[in-house]
């Protein structure tokens, strides 16, 4: 099995699906000839031709709008929004159209789209290359929202997303493209090749949407995380020596409440992590779910560690990013509560 990066895993998944199904079409800004600003579609235009993988005008509403039309015809579009921070012009097409088409047409028309977008900070991208807008999508009925934390999952989840008959928002934490990231920005960059989850089979495999993974088993506290924060949680657990059970949600909607419930019933404590701003973030939903399902098992209040409720700043990136020190403090706090 090859050890590959998250970029390569994503490309691999798209490549495989284009080969298996000629209805899969791939497009977005700089996606065709150049292969995407992060190179996730590199080589696909050469391999499948210009009508299956192509550049689009700089119009996010246009990209998603034509994807919906192609989906209605019967194609299976996989489109890229260059940065999640630029998805807002497409929001109306996603929310009012893609998400509701099945419902309002009683299944006559559907939107089998995959909308990929790099998200999250950690690259000094400032407020327009760092956002984590997942809650804007999890709040919308009719959408599925997926966010992988490693190459193995990225490939299997993206294959499932492309095969899914409903619109899937596929968020790619860009800080993880080339290596795992513990949040220790002052330490040397670690390549994926040193991480076991960079071992990715060449062949087709699918990871069912809606199934979380336990990254670390533990008895003391449940940490619910996704994307980059999974790696931060692992670092914080190792550094504090707290026996945390770390859940990597992988799919936010549909949510794997069974795994969450089992874990919190076992540990009696829960810390929720995300990079996105706190108020009305997905952590609020998670906290409500835990409270509703596990209230009698909880031994301490649920804590959230998140980005602050400010735009993502440039110079203060590491004061903003919820790194291992802040996560470690929260772990200690729930243990002492």
């Amino acid at each position, binding site marked *: 099995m090859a050890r590959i990066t998250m970029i390569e895993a994503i490309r691999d998944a798209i490549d495989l699906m284009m080969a298996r199904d000629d209805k899969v079409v791939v497009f977005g*800004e700089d996606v*065709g000839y150049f292969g995407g600003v992060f190179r996730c579609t590199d080589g696909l235009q050469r391999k499948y031709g210009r009508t299956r993988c192509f550049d689009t*005008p700089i*119009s996010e509403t246009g990209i998603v709008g034509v994807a919906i039309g192609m989906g209605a015809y*019967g194609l299976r579009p996989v489109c890229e929004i260059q940065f999640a*921070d630029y998805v807002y012009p497409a929001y109306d097409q996603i929310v009012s159209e893609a998400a509701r088409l099945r419902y309002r047409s009683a299944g006559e028309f559907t939107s089998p789209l995959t909308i990929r977008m790099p998200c999250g900070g950690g690259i000094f991208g400032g407020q327009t290359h760092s956002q984590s807008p997942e809650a804007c999508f999890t709040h919308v009925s009719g959408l599925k929202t997926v966010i992988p934390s490693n190459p193995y999952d990225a490939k299997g989840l993206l294959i499932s997303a492309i095969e899914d008959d409903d619109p899937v928002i596929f968020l790619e934490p860009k800080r993880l493209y080339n290596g795992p990231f513990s949040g220790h920005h002052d330490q040397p960059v670690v390549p994926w090749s040193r991480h076991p989850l960079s071992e990715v089979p060449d062949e087709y495999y699918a990871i069912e949407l809606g199934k979380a993974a336990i990254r670390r088993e533990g008895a003391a506290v449940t940490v619910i995380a996704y994307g980059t924060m999974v790696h931060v949680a692992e670092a914080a657990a190792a550094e504090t020596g707290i026996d945390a059970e770390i859940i990597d949600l992988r799919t936010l909607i549909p949510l794997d409440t069974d795994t969450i419930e089992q874990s919190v019933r076992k540990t009696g404590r829960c810390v929720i992590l995300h990079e996105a701003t706190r108020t009305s973030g997905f952590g609020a939903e998670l906290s409500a779910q835990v409270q509703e399902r596990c209230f009698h098992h909880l031994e301490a209040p649920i804590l959230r560690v998140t980005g602050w409720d*400010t735009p993502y*700043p440039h110079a*203060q990136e590491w004061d903003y990013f919820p790194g291992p020190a802040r996560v470690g403090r929260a772990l200690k706090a729930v243990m002492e509560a």
Partner: protein
Amino acid sequence: MSDPVPPPIVAPSTTPPLSLHVPEPAVRPGGKPDFSHVRVPEAGTVRRPPLDVAAADIRDLAYTIIRVLNREGRAVGDWAGSLDADGLRRGLRAMIKTRAFDARMLMAQRQGKTSFYMQSTGEEAIACAFQLALEPGDMNFPTYRQQGLLIAQDWPLVDMMCQIFSNEKDRLGGRQLPIMYSARDAGFFSISGNLGTQYVQAVGWAMASAIRGDTRVAAAWIGDGSTAESDFHSALVFASVYRPPVILNIVNNQWAISTSQAIAGGENATFAARAHGYGIPSLRVDGNDYLAVHAAARWAIDRARRNLGPTLIEWVTYRVAAHSTSDDPSKYRPKEESDAWPLGDPVERLKNHLIGIGEWSDERHAQARAEIDQEVLDAAREAERHGTLHTGPKPSAKAMFEGVYKDMPKHLREQRRELGV
């Protein structure tokens, strides 16, 4: 995979199957640069219409290129003569300074003093000449590639550099990506990283000026690629309906990162021609010809100020440098392409013109360059004393919570306390 089934392909036998058109630039890496699709008329051949011309009477001007400087460097035709020698020298110095600033800040990025930089190489005439045709109080809504608007009005370079370095003297408190300046006193609106959003805002600013009976005008800026965004089209329809005092600038530098202007629709019609459907007068101008830029800008600005309404201008130019410090253009266009660009280099062309009319010399040029390089270097040293992205004094973590709202709400005060700052 189940429900969506594409309809069977049922073309009557007489109809050949459809195929999708996907534009490609004339040449890719390894090929010979080819600009034969850019038709360049002789300088001085395009008429200068009266300010109150009807849009319908100048539709042809969206399909040609207004040029003043001819091959010999002489200023010819109706559009010549908007500037005296002092004005021309000022423009030349502004362009040299913009280029020197870009070179210095590119180097600073390579040295790790900032995270990001974008050059405007080859496009300097547009921002510099346009700015020098505006009046104090007018407002630009610039893109990230219009640093010349600030530099041409002698805005302090140290102030710009401190923003680029996100240091303690950055007036924006380190919040914004480098080069996303904001300088209200310079008529320079805060730059958004989200493309196109500000085009329509400029129209709104101009509407406000008209509502209040003011005399100030607004300038909207956008790149060829970004004209695809809906905000561009919204701007045109509002400008068409309310006829506010706004100049709608499109900088067509042929590229939008790796996609050619054909992917923005430049294959079938010019960008200037987009104004026609809205009944807005439009011009297409040689953006590498300082005199043409100044004259056309002046024409449009005068129209706006006299309540004659909006003008759209396509500035035809070429993005000589990489898109940004994160980009490698050799992956998608021939390396020699910029040498083949038929409109030449704006600095060289203005320099040659000034020398031709006896108002400049190679020696003065070399001396001006040396002075400007020194000025830029001194500014960089001064700015670096206040810190660079990773070293020295920087904006505080505490300041990160300020300015989200006018008054900091309780939840942000609590979060600030939680961070312990």
